């Protein structure tokens, strides 16, 4: 049978391997074995393998569009009743996601050549990105829940390593650990879901699981536990409330990694959720939780973003907010809309992060209050920010406009409240992006921006390429899933959408940004500002609840261990030593006493033995 498959399909398992191959190829430079050449060859090799992955994906896309989907499966591990197979699915959707992943990864890697120009551990960075990309490519192609889980953990690992890339920086110290822990909690809960499914369903591929669902016959409790476990993984991966703790600190990693993280990594998380959607039908509770958390994150994240002073953090909170919308769409069974929103968001957000990255690379500054007046100095970067921002919101008919319009159209009747959340998120994001744009690109120059030149070639080329890509997003979206023309939307939907955008734009361009006014005088505004700026004090809440609980419990058990368990042992030991000392003094020299003691002891021992061995 396999011989009948076209060669690129037979070799499809290579696609995730390409990324991991990049890791291997970078090792000689990352370990310092080849010093003469500098670390650059590792970067070139990685870019080369990513290109290979992209081309292989394109080839597969052509074949799949011609012949229809394929699914591949390889045995991995069988023992007793545990059978794990590595299954891949080559469908237009998964291949489109693959192209998105490898394409954006390629652009981000070229961008990193410029951004990390003078970084001495460039090779290590590329090795990590290769790992990242391999894991993502695997996640989007995987059609087995187990493999998906496996690769999500690989993503968690690479996030940890990438966030901890500059490990000597003070903020990174806790950032990497928090990123890993928060995601790991989600992953372990997902693993529990996987374990439960392997017990109840006994199968691991999504197709088999889907056919198992109708006949599952789980009790509501079991179903809900299963559902909650399964959604925890994507929730952590996409930094949804309350698992978004790691998000702001994670922005301490290098910017090219942030580009990937904010565009394709979250997309992978959402795609996993999309795959899980039919299984979640077993658990109405988990769907309700998804809608609730998604809405909270969408509105809360957008609000928090407005109060951030760090240029990367403000954008990353927007990412969470958008993923919240995607989660709502998935929970409401709107997979096509979720996919469109994911795609539109991924390319636009990647562009925004590239633009921001080129600002940071030129000025060495991520603090919004120290930037300004860069619009005239960095035309390509400015244009990229404008286009990216437009692509992210419903101001002009670029990607997100269509996605939002479709969502509002679909939800307007059935769930007006959720439609309102989409509109509010849109408004708030526009307020924020306008604010950031004014702070960074307009206004007077500041010391750090006065002599800023345009970004260098290797940053500018991918940025411009992506700008063009964002501009043609609607066309690509029309290819993926026919987007109806403007006329097909009801006038109310378009009216509300445009109203929300204009409102956001107007508020964003009117809010006072002068430094003297950045701290309100009225105390209630200050409370609100602090609340948002510190992310609703989430980290402090965590610190006084869970962290304190674990730490205190650990101290208590340690005390118990030392004082009670070990104390008892020590006391027994001392007692036996003391009794030995005492016995030594009782030596009388009388033979009879010794014999008597011995005989009594033997009799006692034998009696107890005979009782044992009856």
């Amino acid at each position: 049978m396999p011989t009948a498959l076209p060669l690129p399909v037979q070799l499809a398992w290579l696609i995730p391997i390409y990324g991991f191959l990049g890791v291997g190829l970078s090792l000689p430079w990352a370990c310092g074995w080849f010093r003469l050449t500098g670390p650059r060859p590792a970067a070139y090799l990685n870019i080369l393998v990513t290109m290979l992955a992209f081309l292989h994906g394109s080839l597969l896309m052509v074949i799949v569009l011609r012949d229809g989907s394929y699914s591949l499966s390889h045995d991995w591990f069988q023992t007793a009743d545990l059978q794990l197979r590595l299954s891949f699915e080559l469908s237009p959707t998964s291949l489109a996601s693959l192209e998105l992943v490898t394409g954006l990864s390629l652009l981000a890697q070229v961008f990193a050549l410029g951004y990390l120009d003078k970084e001495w551990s460039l090779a290590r960075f590329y090795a990590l990105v290769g790992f990242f990309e391999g894991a993502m490519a695997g996640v989007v192609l995987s059609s087995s829940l187990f493999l998906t889980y496996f690769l999500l953990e690989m993503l968690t690992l690479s996030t940890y390593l990438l966030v901890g890339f500059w490990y000597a920086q003070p903020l990174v110290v806790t950032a990497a650990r928090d990123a890993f822990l928060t995601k790991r909690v989600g992953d372990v809960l997902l693993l529990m879901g996987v374990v439960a499914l392997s017990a109840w369903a006994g199968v691991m591929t999504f197709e088999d699981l889907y056919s198992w669902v109708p006949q599952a016959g789980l009790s509501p409790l079991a179903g809900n536990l299963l559902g909650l476990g399964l959604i925890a993984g994507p929730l952590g991966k996409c930094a949804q409330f309350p698992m978004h703790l790691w998000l702001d600190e994670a922005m301490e990693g290098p910017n090219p990694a942030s580009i990937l993280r904010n565009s394709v990594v979250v997309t992978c998380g959402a795609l996993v959720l999309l795959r899980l959607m039919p299984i979640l039908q077993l658990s109405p509770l988990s769907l309700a939780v998804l809608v609730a958390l998604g809405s909270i994150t969408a509105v809360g994240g957008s609000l928090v973003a407005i109060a951030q002073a760090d240029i990367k953090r403000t954008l990353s909170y927007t990412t969470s907010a958008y993923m919240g919308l995607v989660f709502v769409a998935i929970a409401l069974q709107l997979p096509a809309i979720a996919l469109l929103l994911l795609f539109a968001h991924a390319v636009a957000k990647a562009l925004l992060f590239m633009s921001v990255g080129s600002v940071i690379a030129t000025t060495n500054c991520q603090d919004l209050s120290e930037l300004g007046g860069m619009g005239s100095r960095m035309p390509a970067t400015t244009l990229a920010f404008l286009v990216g921002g437009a692509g992210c919101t419903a101001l002009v008919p670029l990607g997100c406009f269509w996605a939002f319009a479709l969502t509002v159209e679909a939800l307007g009747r059935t769930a007006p409240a959720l439609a309102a959340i989409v509109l509010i998120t849109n408004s708030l994001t526009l307020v924020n992006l306008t604010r950031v744009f004014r702070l960074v690109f307009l206004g007077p120059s500041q010391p750090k921006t006065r002599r800023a030149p345009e970004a260098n070639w290797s940053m500018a080329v991918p940025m411009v390429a992506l700008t063009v890509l964002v501009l043609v997003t609607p066309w690509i979206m029309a290819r993926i899933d026919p987007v109806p023309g403007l006329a097909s939307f009801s006038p109310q939907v378009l009216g509300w959408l445009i109203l929300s955008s204009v409102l956001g734009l107007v508020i964003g361009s009117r809010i006072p940004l002068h430094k003297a006014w950045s701290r309100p005088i009225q105390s209630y505004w200050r409370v609100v500002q602090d609340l948002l700026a510190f992310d609703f004090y989430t980290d402090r809440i965590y610190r006084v609840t869970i962290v304190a609980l674990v730490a205190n419990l650990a101290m208590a058990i340690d005390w118990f261990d030392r004082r009670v368990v070990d104390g008892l042992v020590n006391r027994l030991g001392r007692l036996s030593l003391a009794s030995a000392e005492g016995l030594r003094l009782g030596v009388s020299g009388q033979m009879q006493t010794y014999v008597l003691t011995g005989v009594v002891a033997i009799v006692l021992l034998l009696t107890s033995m005979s009782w044992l061995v009856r």
Partner: protein
Amino acid sequence: MGSATVFPWLSVSILLPIAAALLIPFIPDQGDGKTIRWYALGVALITFLVTAGAYLNGYDPSVAGLQLIERVEWVPDLGLAWSVGADGLSMPLILLTSFITALAVLAAWPVTFKPRLFYFLILAMDGGQIAVFAVQDMLLFFLSWELELLPVYLLLAIWGAKKRQYAATKFILYTAGGSVFILLAALAMGFQGGGTPSFEYTTLAAKEFGTRFQLLAYAGLLIAFGVKLPIVPLHTWLPDAHGEATAPVHMLLAGILLKMGGYALLRFNVQLLPDAHAQFAPLLVVLGVVNIIYAALTSFAQRNLKRKIAYSSISHMGFVLIGIGSFSALGTSGAMLQMVSHGLIGASLFFLVGATYDRTHTLQLDEMGGVGQKMRKMFALWTVCSLASLALPGMSGFVSELMVFVGFVTSEAYSLSFRIVMAALAAVGVILTPIYLLSMLREIFFGKENTELVSHTKLVDAEPREIYVISCLLVPIIGIGLYPRLMTDSYRASIEALVQREEASMARMIPAGRQGLIRQNPPLAWISPGLEAQRPLLVAPLLP
């Protein structure tokens, strides 16, 4: 099987290191140990090759029963015979022993204090430990169990850190106290039923012990092996022993000694006393969960690096207990894999602790910090080994813990609620592991350099020997993680036979009709409505 013409692989692998150790006093050496260490390394490597040869040439993984049998009458009057052999339970651990010992010799390279005695003890231990796994006679087992005690005591008491006397005494008291029960149980089992006493496993397995006898023997052995594994209230010798030992001794303690407890539980408690096991199994699961959580929390509170890793070992051994108590081939097989996997991972972590101590001269986490800037390779090695320890997919620890989880959850022996609660609690432990390991990495390596530390020590990066030792351990760790059948195939047949025996006795002990804690119904029935009334039995009733 076992014809006389076949090369006596197992006997050679036991006796070679011991004989070679006896030759050490006659090795010409300048007194700095440079010749001796090459000699010891050579002997350890040859031993490893012999065990590998045994595996490749004389061992057929698809056979469930005993292989590589060698039997010589020793003291016929006592029924004592030199009887060695290997099946799936012991073969992987024999390989692990000779492998870890060879690496430990390499790890001991810098030891210059009394090198003759040191290597003598290490080699004697090598033979003793292989004997523990290979012998097929309970009295011999007891002897080799004790034989291995003495070298550890001396290695602790002579080469240990400040509190070495205390730690060594504690170790010997605990273990010797525990082994009294082995001797008692061995004698009781051997003499039971009258006739010529015999202590061979095959004879013992054929005997029909009464239920009450089995329960008593089981309880005694559980204490003895619980000290070694260790099971939580009996564990306090371990942090002290680990906290005071030097790196190579550490590797042996964590890599092999703890596994003796798990092996013995499988060999005696499960294989020879299956009826009692059917009663005790829920207790093992509960103890396993307690081990995981209790030790993980205690580890989090430790400020001393060695003690932290020591507690993490205890935590990981909890999975072995759950697996043994799971009543499923998958779970038991996971327990076995967890032993091998922890042997490798634990050895690598303890080796790194030693290597770090050589540079920082402190084990207090508060006195470290920012070390990663000077020791980048060390940082990388630490990161990889910590990730392996926290069961990252792709490494052996993940596969074994997954197998234990799935095996336990699919086990038909327990009620659904018991399984859910225990699995959830064990999962809490899995979340706690990265908390303490990553916090540890953060405190050692991340952040600003600790000026106090840098001012009085020279932080040299990892040397090739150290990288080599860790790489040797990582190859099987990652190899098993990516392709677990490498290891599981070597013992699958034996574990399946063992579990069949378990299940037969479960069926005998706990009739299907009884609505108790341990149940026979298929798992799906548990979630059908109407069965909520059945609660899991936490502690099986001792007398029916």
